[in-house]
Each structure stands twice: as structure tokens, then as C-alpha cells.
């Protein structure tokens, strides 16, 4: 792996290495606090982000490295019409690694084709966001102690939710993983994910419209937002929206060991009353994002 553009770029053994490295960073932070001394990450964020940009910057700082970059495209020459290729070639003169978020799909791939330093895709429109998936996997591993033999429920907007698509792509490579896809019929997973990921990897999956019925068997519940604008009509949205809101009442039917993940930001799909439940892992998931980004930066920079 030279760049990280999509989650499939990481072979399973490298995924395991990243998780191992993250666990070591968590256990021995001091050992890593100067590993990237003299190195610089450029965070090129052409659209706003709270978690991802701060997470990359904190990750590099915790490794003893430096950060340059911009937090919105209007602060860069992109506003003057500069191409991505020219922007990253310029940045390459000042930085050792790039983390880039851009609204257009495929932008990070274009960046990676034009520089010799590693490029990390920090989100390219609604397409890929692989470091979110890394954070998800580290969280599942830390909370449940394994990535295989799990029953993973994905709930909400499975049609347009890029984080769910990447999670399914990554987890379908592990043995014994079974997916329960919980969504309104209008928002089921796209056909390519069925044919080119789940069926190709021989994964077991079931589809249901009921979170309530699915929840008792799950090891992981990955929640996403059901957005009003995804529905063809208001009546369907009103009829369905509450079915996909996680409340303490629905959670009471889940296993004690089950964990709730969410890529955040949430709107109302997880009641705030759930936050106090030990099964709610979504803020720990944010923290894990920083650790695995540290491991990723080390890996891509070739720092041991």
C-alpha cells in the first residue's frame, strides 16, 4: 500500500498490522511521541470537516510531526480554478504525506497519481472514506476482541451511506461474518455491493425492515442516518423514520456485549439517552480514529 484511496487498497494482513500497531500505540504512547519528528502532514480539506481533519492533525502531532494545510477550498488556489494535480504537486514540495478531503468522487485517486508522497483519502464526496472504516474496525476489535465470526447489523440509509459500503467491503473479507441489513426498502444496499462484494466474497447476509426484530441477535449495530431527502414522498418518510431511531427501549432487547457504532455526526437516529449505555461505542470510535490514523501515517511513511 503506497496510498490509501479506498478500503480495498489494504490487504487483510496489512489491516491486521494496522490494528496491532494501533493497539501498541494505545498501550505505549510515549514510545511513539517522537516517531515523526521532522515530518509534515498536509491536510487539504476542500470542504468542512470536524472529526476527520482534527483527527489527522492530532494524530500527526501525537507522533511528534508537524501539520500544514487548509480547512476549506476557498482558502486555497482551488478557488482560482487550480487543478487537483497542480495543487498536490505544489503541496508535495512542502509536505511528506497528504490527507485530502474533496467534494468530487475520485479526487483523491487523481491526487495520488500526481505525486510521489503518500496520499490518504479523507473523504471524496459520497464515494470513499477509508479511514472511517479503519476507525470502525479498530473499534470493533477493541470492543469485541475479534473481527471474525460476528453478526453485524447495518441500519438506516444503506443505499447512499458510503461508510456502510466500506464497512461491508472490509468486513466481508473476514471469516464467519454475517450481515443483517436493516433499512426501508427504498434504501437497501446498491446492487453492485450485493454482486461484486457480498456474493463474490461468499458472505452471508439477510435483509429486513425491522430494527426491533433484528437487534437481539447482533454483535455490532452500525447506525446511519435516514435522511428526509432520500425519500420519494413525505408520507413514507414520516411512516418509516421512527423505526430507525435507536432508543433505550429498543436497545434493551440487545445482548449485553453488543456494541453500537455510528460514523457521526448523528442527528436524531440515536437517542441521546443511549449515550450513557456502555454498549454505545461511538465516541470511543472517534478516539480510535486518531490511533489508527497514527498507525496509518507511520505505515505510509515507512516509520517503524
Amino acid at each position, binding site marked *: 500500500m503506497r496510498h490509501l484511496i479506498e478500503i480495498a487498497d489494504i490487504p487483510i494482513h496489512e489491516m491486521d498490522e494496522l490494528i496491532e500497531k494501533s493497539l501498541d500505540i494505545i498501550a505505549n504512547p510515549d514510545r511513539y511521541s517522537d516517531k515523526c519528528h521532522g515530518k509534515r502532514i498536509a491536510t487539504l480539506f476542500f470542504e468542512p470537516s470536524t472529526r476527520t481533519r482534527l483527527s489527522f492533525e492530532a494524530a500527526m502531532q501525537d507522533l511528534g510531526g508537524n501539520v500544514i494545510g487548509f480547512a476549506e477550498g476557498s482558502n486555497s488556489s482551488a478557488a482560482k480554478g487550480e487543478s487537483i494535480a497542480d495543487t498536490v504537486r505544489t503541496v508535495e514540495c512542502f509536505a511528506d504525506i497528504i490527507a485530502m478531503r474533496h467534494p*468530487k*468522487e*475520485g*479526487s483523491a*485517486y487523481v491526487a495520488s497519481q500526481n505525486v510521489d508522497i503518500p496520499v490518504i483519502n479523507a473523504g*471524496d*464526496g459520497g*464515494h470513499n472514506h477509508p479511514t472511517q472504516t479503519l476507525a470502525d474496525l479498530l473499534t470493533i476489535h477493541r470492543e469485541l476482541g475479534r473481527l471474525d465470526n460476528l453478526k453485524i447489523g447495518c441500519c438506516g440509509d444503506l443505499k447512499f451511506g458510503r461508510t456502510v459500503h466500506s464497512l461491508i467491503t472490509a468486513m466481508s473479507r473476514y471469516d464467519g461474518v454475517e450481515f443483517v441489513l436493516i433499512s426501508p426498502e427504498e434504501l437497501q444496499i446498491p446492487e453492485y455491493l450485493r454482486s*461484486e462484494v457480498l456474493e463474490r466474497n461468499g458472505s452471508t447476509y439477510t435483509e429486513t425492515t425491522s430494527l426491533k426484530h433484528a437487534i437481539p441477535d447482533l454483535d455490532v449495530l452500525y447506525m446511519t442516518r435516514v435522511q428526509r431527502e432520500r425519500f420519494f414522498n413525505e408520507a413514507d418518510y414520516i411512516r418509516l423514520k421512527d423505526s430507525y431511531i435507536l432508543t433505550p427501549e429498543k436497545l434493551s432487547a440487545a445482548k449485553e456485549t453488543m456494541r453500537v457504532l455510528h460514523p457521526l455526526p448523528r442527528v436524531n437516529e440515536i437517542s441521546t439517552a443511549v449515550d450513557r449505555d456502555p454498549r454505545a461505542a461511538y465516541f470511543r470510535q472517534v478516539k480510535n480514529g486518531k490511533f489508527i490514523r497514527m498507525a496509518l501515517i507511520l505505515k505510509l511513511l515507512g516509520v517503524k
Partner: protein
Amino acid sequence: MIIGSIVNGIVIDHIPAGRGMELYTNLELKNLECEVALIKNASSIKLGKKDIVKIGERIPLDYDILGYIDPRITINIIEDGKLIKKMHPSLPQTITGVIKCRNPRCITSTEQELPHVFKLTDRENGVYRCIYCETKAKQSKEQG
């Protein structure tokens, strides 16, 4: 309708009906000085209907374009009025500058100089996807 046979050249046969013009355009046959015939909706035992292109000269062909249109296309090479070679193209792994990505959110929609490249992701069903945004290529019939 009678179109004469050719002495030296190429006959591209078994083109799916309706896709002959696409092939003609993508192979840039309009730039040729020699005789070129495009026959639409010829009757075919195998396909029911088919398109045929006859080129009165042996020119280098882009087999990737032919394979993308349909790997069942037959390419007949004619020399001195005789068929000397018959072949079928295969589905190309990638195809550049033939299919245009229609996804308005794709980076190719704003970065005009990027080549439009599609890769084969499902050989069985002949599915091509944009290398940037992974949008599935529409068959020309669907593009209307």
C-alpha cells in the same frame, strides 16, 4: 440491398444491431479515405438482426473498442478477395476515451483534462466502472 464484396480489407460482422454507428464513431472511420460501408439491421441467423461494417483497406483496429462493444463481434480479414483470418476481440481490462462518465459528482466533471477511463469489474456481465468514481458505464442503448 446489395453491397459489393471487398477485395482487400476488413469486414466487422456480428455487431449488435444498433451499435454499428457507435463502432464507426469510436474507430474514427470517418477519417478514412477508402470505401467504408455501415449496414444496419442486416438479418442474422445467430442474432436475428446485426450491424456490419466493411472497410476497403486493411487498417490497424483498436480491439479494445471492439471488445468493449461486444466480444462476440467477428473480425474478418480479406486479402485478394479471400478470407485469410477470422477473430474475436476480448473484453478489454480498461478502456480510455470511449465512454464518458455521466456522474455529475465525478472529478472528471470539473477537471476537464482528465482522461475518461473505465475498468472491467465484472467480466461475466461485462460491467465497466469509472476508475475515479466507480459509476457503472451505461450501454449505448441506455444512453439514448
